[in-house]
């Protein structure tokens, strides 16, 4: 009896956050967990960025000046791993945590304690991964794609730490995805049918299904590596009757949906922001939903386009070429819809809008080079050169990262109850938008001219472009420090958020009071 009474009593007093470190260690509030994800992602963005700076410094001039080739290999390996698994993916989970309950009228995520566990696995996993720098054998140097047998027979013992880290990241991601699906399916406000959900929620729902489908595949492939390395199996070892190529099939069955895991939430964010600042509804909402679904489906059946040069049989090459080309159709639909959303709107250009428009422009460039690489014979030349480096960085940096910046500026006023400095944010935008192109556009040229990726040094004809690329990289890297300054400044001393943050913003998250109470939507709103 008395225990029940205390429990009720306890709940009654539980209005605000807990005091001290306990608030974060035992957080179950979606806002707190979202905040932790976002800060972790930001920290990892700078760690991965620091690795990229080492890469660009070494490539500033021909010859080796700064690091030996082994270090160089570690730098781009860890750059890729940290950016993919430590920065972009967790950042989107942070967005999901903050925004999905606010946008669908739910009081919290469906499974708050699992939410806490899935967050805390993340820093542990990243620590395991990064700790390899301080071990004998040093950090992984086999590329973020860790092709066997370079990552099995020929890798240092630290590769086992990498495997363990990937396992933990996978568990964390799967739990996060389950939580997102459970929340969206069960906790939508009355009246919010699936086809009334905001685009960001839709894209995350589809992303979550991708995560659940492919993270176990990743876990499977690293487990096979683990047993190859330690327990005498020969999954990927030709001398034991295994098949090194099978590694690539399994890896890319995970890897291709993985790239959509990073980009689909960006589509969602941009689809929220463009209508707000164009003061006009999203063009073709239904087709946007179907296009996202189509992209997600296609992502499972195109992995072979990463493997055109591996000696796939002709029929396989043709199939993967045709299937990959199909992705251009739904992707095109999305881009046309965004352009049509802007068309005859009444646009203003605050920082979220600037980043979103830049996203549409620059992601389109990444999409078009993707279409070029879908063509099997042409890919025989493009493959594994700086052309592909340019391609995927266009989709991930002015793609996913710009969408993250856009989303942060867009929602920061409700997250922290204070406005950011618009003038500084615009400077941040212009510096980023210009430098990112100086950084990545010339990579198309050196790639076409024949510079392979993942090399610490290059023939002299690539010297001038590499210097320009490096300068672009340094400016881009440094300008991101502005972002931290702007966010911290907003949190500490920004003007209080007005009742109407953005004139054209629509959706449940904008109907809440400012500053946001610790618990929101405790009674579900009604959507008509």
């Amino acid at each position, binding site marked *: 009896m008395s225990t029940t009474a205390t429990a009720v009593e306890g709940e009654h007093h539980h209005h605000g956050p807990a005091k001290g470190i306990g608030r974060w260690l035992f957080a179950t509030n979606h806002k707190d967990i979202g905040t932790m994800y976002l800060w972790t992602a930001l920290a990892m963005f700078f760690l991965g960025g620091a690795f990229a700076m080492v890469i660009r410094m070494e490539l500033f001039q*021909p*010859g*080796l000046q700064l690091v030996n*080739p*082994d270090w160089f*290999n570690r730098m781009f390996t860890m750059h890729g791993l940290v950016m993919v698994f430590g920065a972009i993916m967790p950042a989107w989970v942070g967005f999901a945590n903050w925004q999905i309950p606010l946008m669908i009228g739910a009081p919290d995520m469906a499974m708050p304690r699992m939410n806490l566990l899935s967050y805390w696995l993340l820093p542990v996993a990243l620590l395991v991964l990064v700790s390899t720098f301080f071990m004998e*054998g040093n950090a992984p140097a086999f590329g973020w794609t860790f*092709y066997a*047998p*370079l990552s099995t027979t*020929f890798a240092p013992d630290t590769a086992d730490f990498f495997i363990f880290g990937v396992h933990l990241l996978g568990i964390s991601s799967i739990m996060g995805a389950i939580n997102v699906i459970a929340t969206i399916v069960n906790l939508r406000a009355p009246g919010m049918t699936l086809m009334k959900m905001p685009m960001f929620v839709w894209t995350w729902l589809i992303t979550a299904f991708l995560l659940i489908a492919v993270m176990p595949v990743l876990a499977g492939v690293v487990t096979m590596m683990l047993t190859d390395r330690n327990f005498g199996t020969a999954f990927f070892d*030709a*001398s034991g009757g295994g*098949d090194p190529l099978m590694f690539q099939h399994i890896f890319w069955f995970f890897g291709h949906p993985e790239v959509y895991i990073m980009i689909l939430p960006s589509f969602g964010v941009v689809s929220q922001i463009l209508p707000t600042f164009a*003061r*006009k*509804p999203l*063009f*073709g909402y*239904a087709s946007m939903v179907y296009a996202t679904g189509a992209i997600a489906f296609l992502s499972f059946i195109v992995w072979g386009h990463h493997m055109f*040069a591996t*000696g796939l049989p002709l029929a396989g090459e043709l199939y993967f*070429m045709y299937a990959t*080309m199909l992705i*251009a159709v739904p992707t095109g*639909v999305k881009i*046309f819809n965004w*352009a*049509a959303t*802007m*068309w*005859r*709107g*009444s*646009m*203003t*250009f605050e920082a979220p809008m600037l980043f979103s*428009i830049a996203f549409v422009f620059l992601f*389109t460039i990444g999409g*078009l080079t993707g279409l*070029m690489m879908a063509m*099997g*014979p*042409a890919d025989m*030349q493009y*493959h*594994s*050169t700086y052309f592909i480096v340019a391609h995927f960085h266009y989709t991930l940096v002015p793609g996913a990262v710009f969408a993250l910046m856009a989303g942060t500026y867009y929602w920061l006023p409700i997250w922290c109850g204070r406005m950011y400095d618009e003038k500084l944010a615009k400077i941040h935008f212009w510096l980023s938008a210009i430098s990112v192109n100086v950084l990545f556009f010339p990579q198309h*040229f050196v790639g*076409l*001219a*024949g510079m*392979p990726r*993942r090399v610490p*040094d290059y*023939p*002299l*004809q690539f010297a*001038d472009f590499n210097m320009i690329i490096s300068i672009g990289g340094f400016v881009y890297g440094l300008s991101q420090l502005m972002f931290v300054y702007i966010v911290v400044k907003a949190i500490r001393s920004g003007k209080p958020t007005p009742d109407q943050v953005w004139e*054209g913003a629509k959706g449940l998250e904008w109907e809440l009071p400012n500053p946001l109470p610790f618990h929101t939507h405790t009674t579900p709103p009604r959507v008509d």
Partner: protein
Amino acid sequence: MSANGNRMARRLAWLGALVPALFVSQVANAAWDLNLTQGVTETSQTVFDIHMTLLWICVVIGVGVFGVMIYSIFTHRKSKGAVAAQFHESTTIEIIWTVIPTLLLVVMAIPSTVALIDLEDNSASDMSIQVVGYQWKWQYKYLDEELDFFSNLAASSRDQINSDPTGVDNYLLEVDNRLVIPAGKKVRFLITANDVIHSWWVPDFGWKQDAIPGFINEAWTRVEEPGIYRGQCTELCGIDHGFMPIVVEVKPQAEYDAWVAEQKSALKAAAASGDREWAMAELMEKGEEVYMRVCVACHQANGQGIPPAFPAIAGGAISTGPIKGHLDQAMNGVPGTAMQAFAAQLNDVELAAVVTYQRNAFGNEMGDMVQPADVKAAR
């Protein structure tokens, strides 16, 4: 000359040292290549044409989409008094922009399919060469001749990696032994690897093909124009991935035949040179050359290695240990590491020389030597 002039000259000299280091000397070597090569084969020309078609289609799409957006950005802005329309759907237009791209894709698929079928047609070749990727060199085996050899990064490039490569001809694109093929013949390549995955790419031929242990991938080329064509490994294969170039020399048939004969007699002579006793100085000289070619990538020019993956030769347990163990390690390697079994790659003289060199260089001063006859006996 006045003092002023002197100072001026000094300043100029200083600038002259600085500026070239950054820009000028590089501009001298520079090529502002922007585009894919057209190459020298039918395949590479076809690929180039597909690439250009794709590029122009992408440019047209890009200009269209960006044009609409830019027009919209400048016209439909609130500051110009634009009032937002409220349309948000049009089935017609959505069907149009789904169907048109689909048709464009079909148009692009046709030449790509034809090209891919041709690329994979390895039949009716005139000769076959097996290409084997090793960490970090290529082995070429002429299957129709009794001829095979290794191709390493040239010393001219290797020597300058850690200093100033700007004056080196074909920096990182030169090898000690070039692959030589006859002009006008359909050459089939059988591509595989000995350790990890590599990828064999000569852009002028229009394709690359992965070299995968346990697999033999086929590819072919027919080069009409004699010349020297250069490429690089394009699959991450460990620390010296960036330092295993490919150089193919295409010679007219007669010159090619002469080259084959010459290579064969050279191989015979090299094998025969192992029949005599070698002096210490000879072994050391030969050994240094072999070391700088095959050992240096891991064990480094100063013999310090990059521990723990690549142990030091200087004062190393093996190289200062019993001579038998040292030779055994060099000949049979350490399975599962980058330390290969060099018995299959080096001849008796080379093995004897390099082991001798390692035992007497880098301050090891063991004073002993291995003779080619010892290697022969150990085989």
